[in-house]
């Protein structure tokens, strides 16, 4: 009898497994209806979510503050020591600001003037533990579309991967699913910057082993053909270079210029009217 009951259960489980596998396969191959369903789900939940955000986000901030209290204390002490050192460096910092302005001119950053950009608040983080995304408070109704690049004043944040009427999901460049064609400031050599699943470093693949890459060098988007990212958006600075004899590429790590853990406002770059 028990064996019969167990056997009777299995068809339901098998049906669910087969359906799930079919859905996964469809989505991996890129199915339009699934994307529409995702946008629709956001449209349904977003109005309720906005109310929850307004009422309950202070509670979340409080809990977050408690769980990171120890690290905040250490950080506070470290920052005090740094402040003393920073006072001495203030004068040279002014010079650095001037230099930075010149570098920006050299890099020709089209996003700085914000001519065709939509400013959007970051309203929520990733809804899961295994992805690097943020939700922004502007959507299709504001002209935001899939694949549009997202930046802050510091540099590249990521690209829009999902849009609903009032909100959009941005895939951060730190996500392993993200890839950005980049070029190195000094030599102009290219590579592809990919996320590593943490917010502290990106890995640049396909860097010519014969080209000199130096620590601290600025890396900017290359604006490759069919890439959603226009050329010249700063991505990060080189933090580590490893080159072994006989390797086909250099192992280059880049520290992003954007602090992904403290994103408040971002700009979505819309393609210029009549542009590509």
């Amino acid at each position: 009898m028990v064996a019969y009951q167990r056997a009777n259960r299995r068809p339901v489980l098998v049906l669910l497994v087969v359906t799930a596998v079919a859905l996964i396969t469809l989505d991996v191959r890129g199915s339009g209806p699934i994307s529409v369903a995702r946008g629709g789900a956001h449209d349904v939940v977003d109005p309720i979510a906005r109310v929850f955000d307004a009422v309950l986000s202070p509670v979340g901030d409080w809990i977050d503050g408690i769980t990171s209290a120890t690290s905040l204390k250490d950080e506070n002490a470290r920052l005090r020591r740094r402040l003393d050192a920073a006072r001495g460096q203030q004068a040279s910092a002014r010079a650095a600001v001037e230099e930075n302005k010149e570098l920006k001119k050299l890099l020709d950053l089209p996003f700085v003037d914000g001519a065709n950009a939509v400013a959007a608040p970051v309203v929520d983080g990733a809804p899961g533990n295994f992805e690097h995304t943020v939700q922004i408070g502007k959507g299709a109704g504001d002209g935001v579309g899939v694949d549009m690049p997202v930046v802050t004043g510091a540099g590249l944040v990521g690209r829009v991967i999902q849009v609903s009427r009032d909100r959009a999901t941005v895939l951060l460049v730190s996500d392993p699913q993200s890839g950005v064609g980049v070029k190195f400031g000094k030599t102009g050599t290219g590579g592809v910057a990919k996320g590593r699943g943490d917010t502290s470093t990106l890995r640049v693949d396909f860097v010519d082993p014969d080209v000199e890459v130096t620590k601290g060098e600025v890396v900017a988007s290359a604006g490759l053909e069919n890439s959603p990212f226009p050329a010249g958006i700063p991505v990060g600075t080189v933090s580590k270079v490893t080159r072994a004899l006989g390797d086909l590429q250099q192992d280059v790590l880049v520290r992003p210029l954007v602090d992904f853990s403290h994103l408040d406002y971002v700009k979505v770059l819309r393609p210029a009217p009549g542009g590509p």
Partner: protein
Amino acid sequence: MISLPRVRLALLVVAVLVLQTTVFSAGLRVFGVMPDLGLVLTVAVAFSLGPERGAVFGFVTGLAVDLFLSTPLGVSALSFALVGYGAGIVAGGFLRPSRWVAPTMGALGGLAGGVLFVGIAAVAGREDLLSIASFRVVLIASAYDALLACAVFPMARWATRMPAAEPEAWLRSSTVRR
């Protein structure tokens, strides 16, 4: 006809989605990790209704959660369904309820669900998730799930409670425990 428990369960799923995409994603994280409320609810419902209904509920809840994630649609649905089925079978082995049932089931469900999610996502092309960092996330999330299970289990019991007028109809299609 839609039964009252189904309406209650649907409301709970919507509440889970809203909480997961707002409060927990925005800041209610422990060491940067958020709980998997949908998974905890699946375990709690499976505990009350058995493996078959637990699997179906897990599939539906996971599918709803998937709509908000960037991982392929169906990864959460499959992992939740398997956890729901397993939790329903385990629940059949409990002779009498204890105060430790909810946190234990929440922790084990969270652990199994997290491992299944990572494994299925890796097969679906997210090999980057197979890392030590992912295992750390799963461990912290399962501890968080254990804590939340203490609140979610009573809610699931309320949602799955049979109305006095239609016990037979509700039981007819439910799974018989071992």
